[in-house]
């Protein structure tokens, strides 16, 4: 069970990929899909590896992603 998860606000994203690069466990990749503004938002490719550390959230210049910890039952803490 993953220790954390991310929430992505797709329509805020500008596809800079900074979150993808600086996620320590390579949870994210840019999607091939477009958002409403024509950018490629990230999606989760390695959900099990997410620690909920929120580094992606700290780096994101667009407030479009953040990570959070999950408890034993997979419930947000």
């Amino acid at each position, binding site marked *: 069970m993953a220790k954390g998860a991310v*929430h992505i606000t797709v329509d*805020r994203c500008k596809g800079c990929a900074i979150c993808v690069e600086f996620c320590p466990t390579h949870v994210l990749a840019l999607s091939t899909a477009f958002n409403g*503004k024509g950018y490629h938002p990230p999606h989760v490719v390695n959900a099990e590896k997410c620690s909920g550390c929120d580094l992606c959230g700290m780096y994101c*210049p667009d407030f479009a992603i953040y990570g959070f910890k999950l408890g034993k039952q997979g419930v947000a*803490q």
Partner: protein
Amino acid sequence: MAAVANPVEQFLRSERIPHIWCPGCGIGTTVNAFARAVIDSGLDPLKVVVVSGIGCSGRVAGYVSFDSFHTTHGRAIPFATGLKLANPELTVVVYSGDGDLSAIGGNHLIHSARRNLDIKVICVNNLVYAMTGGQSAPTTPETANTSTSPYGSFEPDLNLPKLLDAAGASYVARWTTYHVKQMERAMLELLRKKGFGFLEVVSQCPTLYQRRNGMGDGLESVKFYKEHSKVKNDACLDDLAMDKIGEIICGRFVDRDRPEYGQTMREFYQNKLGAKYRAPEFQDGVLV
């Protein structure tokens, strides 16, 4: 799965997001660190005020949900001075860019540090005048190509930490947008420090600076900061000048205690004028 809210959302004017900053611009990252630092500080958000000048970074005032002022060009510090002297209970944060703070408003910056007024200055340094089209600024490193230095800049650049140290600031630090955790901690220290505090955040302007200098997009810029920065808290401040591709020395360079301007002023007038002088008094945050 919006199981918990984004911790910074409470401090954003959500209805104004997406913001106008370009893809990969570093300014938004600094706002993340700032919002988190305010949470860490435990300060009452109703007593935190953000004052910005003009420029891309000057837009911060319009995106944060604190009481905020978007002031005239270079004059964020004079507005902040009025605020802090009239209501010493406020934590007054000046959030602006290098051009606004150190060029157009350069004298205010120097003299506010000299007076050691208790304001917290966050200077997002993207090394150019961004909003107006990428012209050379006093902070542009030598040899950098800008829209007004198409053959490369030949002027020496302004070393902000050294300037602020010489002027008398109580706290001086520098980080980059790569150092998100250190930036958050420095902003917390800034919020807690009494006196004039100055944090320089070296931040990418991929649209105008990095692109013209062949340094890639926002992501490449943050990777560049990772590779080219060095943490050195006891650095000789002469070494902090930046060049285009050289080392960016980061750290906390100054942390000292000096008499604070507002307090000194109130005590001075109380001594000189006695009952004729009335310092601002507050009840429940309201001037009485």
